C-alpha cells in the first residue's frame, strides 16, 4: 500500500511539470504580444528593449522557463500587468474566495446528490427513481447563470431574504464566514453552484448502485441472511470508487470557478480573476491562476486515486 501511494505521488510529478510547461507557453500561444498592453502605442524601440529586459523576454525560451519555474515554486508568479500587484496575492484572494463557495457547495452537492442517487439506484424504475432522474436532468441542463439571475430576482429582489451580489459591505478582505451578516452572501451562489454537481453525482451514483446491485455477490449476501441495510452497505462500498472519481472532477471544476456565476453575483473568485486576466491580456495572472488550478486538479485526482485504492484492493495492483 505505501508503495502504491509513493508510486502515485511520483506519477503526479511529471504531470504537474507538463502542466507548468503548458502554462508557461501560454505567453507565446496567446495571439498578440503581451508587451503591447503595458507599452504606450507610441513607445520607442529603446523603451521596448528596456521593458523586454525587465520582464526577461530577451532570454532564450528554456532559460525563461527555468527562471519562471524556479520563482513559481517559491510562490513568486511575478506582477500582474493590469494591477501591478503580485500575482500570488491576486491568486490567493481569488482562489480563496471561490474556495469559500466550494467549501460549502461540495458537501451540499455531494450529500444531496449521493443520497438521491442511492435512493434511485435502490428502487430502479420506481417513482423515486424517475423523480430523481428528472431532478438530475433538470439540475444538469439548467444554465446556471440563468438560475443565478432567477435566484437573485426571487430571493433578493422580490422576497428580500438574501443579498443579491458581492461579499458584504467590507468586501473580500474583511469577509468572515462566521458572521451571518457576511455568510448570508454565500447562500445564493453556493446553491447555484451546487445544482450541476448534484445532478451529475445523483446520476453517477444511481447508475453505479443499480449496476452493483445486479452483481452476483449481492445474492450471496442475501443468502447469508443479511438484512437490506447490510446489503446496501456492501453495495455502497463497491459503488463508491466510481462515484469518487466523478466527485473529484466536480470538485476540480468548482474550484476553477464559474465565470458566469461569479459575474452575476460579483463574487471576486477564480472565474472572475481569469475572465479579467483574459480581457486585460494579463498573462502572468493567467499563467499563475491556471497553474495553481491545474496543480489543484492533479492533487485532487491523486487523493481520489488513493481513496479508491483504499476502498477497492483490486486497484492497488494496477
Amino acid at each position: 500500500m505505501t508503495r502504491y501511494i509513493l508510486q502515485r505521488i511520483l506519477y503526479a510529478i511529471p504531470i504537474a511539470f507538463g502542466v507548468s510547461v503548458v502554462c508557461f507557453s501560454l505567453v507565446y500561444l496567446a495571439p498578440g504580444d503581451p508587451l503591447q498592453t503595458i507599452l504606450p502605442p507610441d513607445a520607442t524601440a529603446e523603451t521596448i528593449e528596456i521593458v523586454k529586459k525587465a520582464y526577461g523576454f530577451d532570454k532564450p525560451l528554456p532559460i525563461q522557463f527555468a527562471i519562471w519555474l524556479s520563482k513559481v515554486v517559491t510562490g513568486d508568479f511575478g506582477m500582474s500587468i493590469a494591477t501591478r500587484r503580485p500575482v500570488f496575492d491576486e491568486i490567493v484572494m481569488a482562489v480563496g474566495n471561490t474556495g469559500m463557495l466550494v467549501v460549502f457547495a461540495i458537501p451540499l452537492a455531494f450529500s444531496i446528490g449521493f443520497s438521491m442517487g442511492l435512493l434511485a439506484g435502490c428502487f430502479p424504475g420506481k417513482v423515486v427513481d424517475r423523480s430523481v432522474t428528472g431532478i438530475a436532468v433538470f439540475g444538469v441542463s439548467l444554465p446556471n447563470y440563468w438560475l443565478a439571475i432567477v435566484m437573485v430576482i426571487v430571493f433578493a429582489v422580490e422576497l428580500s431574504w438574501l443579498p443579491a451580489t458581492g461579499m458584504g459591505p467590507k468586501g473580500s478582505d474583511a469577509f468572515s464566514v462566521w458572521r451571518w451578516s457576511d455568510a448570508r452572501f454565500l447562500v445564493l451562489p453556493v446553491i447555484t453552484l451546487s445544482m450541476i454537481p448534484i445532478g451529475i453525482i445523483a446520476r453517477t451514483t444511481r447508475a453505479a448502485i443499480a449496476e452493483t446491485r445486479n452483481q452476483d455477490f449481492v445474492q450471496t449476501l442475501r443468502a447469508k441472511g443479511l438484512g437490506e441495510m447490510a446489503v446496501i452497505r456492501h453495495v455502497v462500498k463497491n459503488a463508491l470508487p466510481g462515484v469518487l472519481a466523478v466527485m473529484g472532477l466536480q470538485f476540480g471544476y468548482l474550484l476553477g470557478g464559474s465565470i458566469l456565476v461569479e459575474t452575476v453575483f460579483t463574487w471576486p473568485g477564480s472565474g472572475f480573476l481569469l475572465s479579467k486576466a483574459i480581457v486585460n491580456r494579463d498573462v502572468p495572472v493567467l499563467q499563475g491562476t491556471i497553474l495553481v488550478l491545474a496543480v489543484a486538479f492533479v492533487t485532487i485526482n491523486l487523493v481520489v486515486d488513493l481513496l479508491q485504492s483504499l476502498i477497492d484492493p483490486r486497484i492497488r495492483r494496477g
Partner: protein
Amino acid sequence: MTTPEPLAEVRDLHVRFVGRENTVHAVNGVSFTVNPGKVLCILGESGSGKSVTLRALMRLLPVQAKIEGTVRAAGRDVLALRGKALRDLRGGEVSMIFQEPMTALDPVYTIGQQIGETVRRHTGCDRAKAWARALELLELVRIPSAERRLDAYPHELSGGLRQRAMIAMALSCDPRLLLADEPTTALDATVQIQVLILLRKIQRELGMGMIFVTHDLGVAAEIADTVAVMYAGRIVESGPVGRILAAPLHPYTAGLLASTVHGQPRDRDIDAIPGSPPDMRRLPRGCAFAPRCSRRREGCLATVPPEHYPEPGRMAACIAIEKHAEDTLLVHG
C-alpha cells in the same frame, strides 16, 4: 420405524417470471424430498430450472418471480416466512454455495470479514469470536495457511481456494441443509474432484442434507444418494442414483446417459440428444421432451405425462414407460 421429518420438502412447485411482454414458466410442478444426511442431485441441461428450484428453497428469487406450491425447509414453511424469520433461515439453517466463486464473493471485503459477518449475523457474537470461528472454518475446508488467507481478498485466491472459502462461509452457522448450485462447474478438472470430495466428506461428517445441482452425470454418480432429472421445469425421472444410472427409464435420462457413460467426451453430452430444449415462454401442452424424443408416439403431445412409480422410490413421467419399464427392469433388474 418412524420416518424422520424430511429436511426439505417441495410439493408441486411452480415458478413463473412475469414480464411485461411474456411469462417464463421456469418451474412447472416439481416435487421432491430430502432427508437428513442425504444428498439429492438435480440433473438437467441448461435452462431446465435447476437454479430456480434451488433458489425457491431460500426464496432468493427476484420480485417478478411468482412462486406457488409448498416449500418446506428445516421444518419451516418457506413461502410463509417474512422478514427476519426468513433471514434467520438463510445462512442459518439453510445455506447456499454458488457456481462462480469469483463473482459470488464481495470483491472489496476480505475472506475473514465476509465469513465473520455471517457468523456475527447469526450468532450475535463479537468480532474476536467470529474471527476465531472463521479461522476454524478455513481449516475445516483445508485452506492452507488459513490464518493468512483470512486477510486475503477474493481476487488474491485461486478459483479452488475461493470456492473453498465460499463453502466455509456457507458452513459458518452449521446449516442443516446445504444447497449447492453447480459448485464445481467453474473449476479446473483436478480442482473439481478435490472440492467434490471435500464437500461430500464435510456433508457426511456434519450429517447435513444437501441438494446438489449439476449437469454432469459423473459428479452425480460421485456424490448423490438420489437423483432427480429435470427437463423444461419438470422432474422427468427420479430415484436412487445407482438404479437410475444402471437402468434409466425416461428417454431423456437414457439420452443423457448414453452420451456420457459410454466414453464420449463430456462436453458433448447435450449434443447427443438431437434438437434443443423448448422455449420456456411457450411450452408445448404435452410432454416437453416429445419433440426430441426417439420413442415419441401418439398421445405424447396431448397431455403432460403422468408420473409412474415402477419400483419403490422411483418415478418416471413418460407414457411410454409401462411397456418399456418392464423390458428394462427385466434386462437390468
